[in-house]
């Protein structure tokens, strides 16, 4: 299928179904969807000649017929390629099945405002983030998501509210067979002044069909709001997962996302962080453990807009088989944003000769008195360390697992909540045990 035909398929979905999309009779949303699809049409779908997409051929993944996913009312099993690692953690849980909210299986937390797109459309407070999306004219994936979103959740944590339990959003793919489906979900989380929340997201699929998920999450953190965010992805080898994670941080806000890709045929996460208020701090941790032909692309765009904002990005990948791990980290320090401190650290370990890691830092510094450090390493596990462990009687496979876990594991320290961290570590171990070392 040509690029034009691929684009026509997606535009056709919109044109053919727009009157059935949620909010079709709400001009606030319908008009924004129209603008979004017009932007997609003029920008075209992402292709490898665009610098931002040069490592990840998305067009190839989008270029075939699909059916829009439909609500799933059947039984829910909380597992993907791996079981839900957080099933035993006491949480308030929101469940999406096949891209649609399942109220019957969800337990929204008290004290938070939770509404869903399919049920009640878009709240007024959510419009600014949609407009921010429309302002990114070149972002075809984000705009396609806005145009086609079938469901999603809008969450507001009121000022000063400190959620006791984590909020866990589970995205299940219950019917992993039959036609190739496209799920489009767009959610928002807004933390008002001084609010605090731990958000967990698990994307669980078996990827039997070559499904495409296009998920966007807009995050707004008001002054001194604190959001800890753990996202785990475990999907099948043929799945395509495309994620946009857009966060804006006001004065003194803190955002700490930890993203674990524990397997998915193709995953692209575009993370945009807007550091808009002095003292805002972002602590990004992204780990991937991949095998087979899996492909993970994390592209971050971090904009330090005002003086005195800080960020630390730690990206680690363990790559087996013919898998590929990509990290493109762009840091933009706007004029006058003095005192910015933005660090990027990317490390990859290759467990096979055919695996590949690519790292591309990109610094655009338009201010003075700025600290922007970046470091990248790509390599095999330390053979001296492997010998040391084996010489003490630890079998090769177990020794390798120890070293791989040690390589990734310390990065999990970013998850402050201990049971959560332990659960993430256990999921990581389970994934690592399934990877083959062929060095």
């Amino acid at each position, binding site marked *: 299928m040509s690029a034009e035909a691929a684009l026509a398929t997606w535009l056709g979905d919109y044109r053919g179904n727009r009157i059935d999309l949620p909010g079709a009779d709400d001009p606030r949303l319908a008009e924004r969807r129209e603008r979004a699809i017009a932007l997609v049409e003029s920008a075209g779908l992402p292709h490898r000649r665009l610098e931002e997409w040069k490592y990840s051929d998305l067009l190839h993944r989008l270029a075939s017929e699909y059916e829009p996913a439909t609500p799933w009312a059947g039984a829910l099993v909380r597992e993907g390629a791996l079981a839900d690692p957080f099933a035993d953690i006491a949480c308030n849980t929101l469940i999406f099945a096949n891209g649609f909210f399942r109220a019957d299986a969800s337990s929204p937390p008290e004290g938070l405002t939770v509404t869903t797109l399919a049920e009640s459309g878009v709240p007024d407070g959510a419009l600014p983030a949609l407009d921010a999306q429309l302002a990114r004219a070149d972002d075809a994936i984000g705009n396609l998501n806005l145009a086609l979103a079938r469901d999603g959740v809008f969450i507001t944590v009121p000022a000063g509210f400190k959620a006791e339990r984590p909020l866990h959003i589970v995205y299940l793919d219950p019917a992993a067979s039959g036609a190739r489906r496209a799920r489009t979900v767009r959610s928002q989380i807004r933390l008002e002044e001084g609010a605090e929340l731990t958000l967990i997201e698990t994307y669980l699929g078996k990827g039997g069909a070559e499904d495409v998920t296009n998920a966007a999450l807009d995050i707004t953190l008001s002054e001194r709001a604190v959001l800890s965010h753990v996202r785990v992805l475990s999907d099948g080898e043929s799945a395509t997962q495309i994620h946009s994670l857009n966060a804006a941080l006001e004065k003194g806000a803190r955002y700490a996302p930890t993203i674990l890709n524990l397997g998915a045929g193709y995953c692209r996460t575009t993370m945009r962080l807007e550091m808009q208020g002095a003292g805002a701090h972002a602590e990004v941790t992204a780990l991937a453990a991949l095998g087979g032909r899996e492909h993970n692309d994390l592209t971050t765009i971090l904009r330090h807009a005002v003086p005195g904002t800080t960020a630390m990005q730690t990206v680690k990948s363990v790559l087996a088989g013919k898998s590929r791990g990509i990290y493109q980290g762009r840091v933009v320090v706007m004029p006058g944003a003095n005192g910015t401190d933005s660090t990027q650290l990317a490390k990859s370990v290759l467990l096979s000769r055919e695996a590949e890691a690519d790292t591309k830092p990109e610094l655009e510094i338009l201010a003075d008195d700025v600290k922007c450090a970046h470091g990248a390493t790509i390599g095999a596990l330390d053979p001296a360390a492997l010998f*040391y462990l084996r*010489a*003490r*009687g*630890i079998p090769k496979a*177990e*020794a390798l697992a120890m*070293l791989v876990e*040690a390589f990734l594991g*310390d990065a999990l320290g970013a998850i402050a909540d201990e049971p959560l961290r332990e659960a993430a570590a256990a999921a990581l171990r389970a994934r690592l045990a399934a990877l083959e070392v062929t060095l």
Partner: protein
Amino acid sequence: MGAALVLEIENLHVTVDGREILKGLTLAVNAGEVHAIMGPNGSGKSTLSYALAGRDGYAVTEGSMRLAGKDLIALTPEERATMGLFLAMQYPVEIPGVVTMTFLRTALNALKRARGEKEIDAAGFLKEVRAAAKTLNVSEEMLKRALNVGFSGGEKKRLEALQMAVLKPRLAILDETDSGLDIDALKLVAEGVNALRAPDRAFIVITHYQRLLDYIVPDKVHILAGGRIVREGGPELAKDLEARGYDAIVREAA
């Protein structure tokens, strides 16, 4: 005849990176004995210890090595460890992210599993490690840190000795375990070795210094030069060496 042979090396040739380092080394160690190997820098002492432990890149091109009668050459490092071989390394490796205590327990249980023995429970293990740690003056805090990471030279060596005490090998090779130790630590490590001495256990102590041999009195001293054992003798050979240096002794042997 008496004691059984623990280690039997015959005409061993070992090549590293295409360069022959050991050139026909022969050595026999009986159960219950302590042997010292001394030799100039670069003579092949560590090469011998790595070849015995089975490190990748140390290719045996000729000759044989047997542990308790069993040929070692085709065995993996972990199989050799299971048979009771232990190498305290000259340069212990730092392994970030692996907690020392966890490593020790994993190693001990791996050995037990491979030998068909029951694994040790957490409490029993802790007791055993604490006892050994106390005699070797290894702090509880060190055991909680990542393996060898940021340990001083002497701390690393004491931890090697601790591992030996916990893993209780049949043949322990100590490759310059005394280098980097202060005088008190040297005594502790020597006492650790002496406490482990047993009729069914043997030691090869690689060292540059007579002082260690004052504390661990060897049954035999071998001098390794140019990839071969060029002289053998009793403890007096080490003293002779200390007094006259390698040059004289090796030339005499030639």
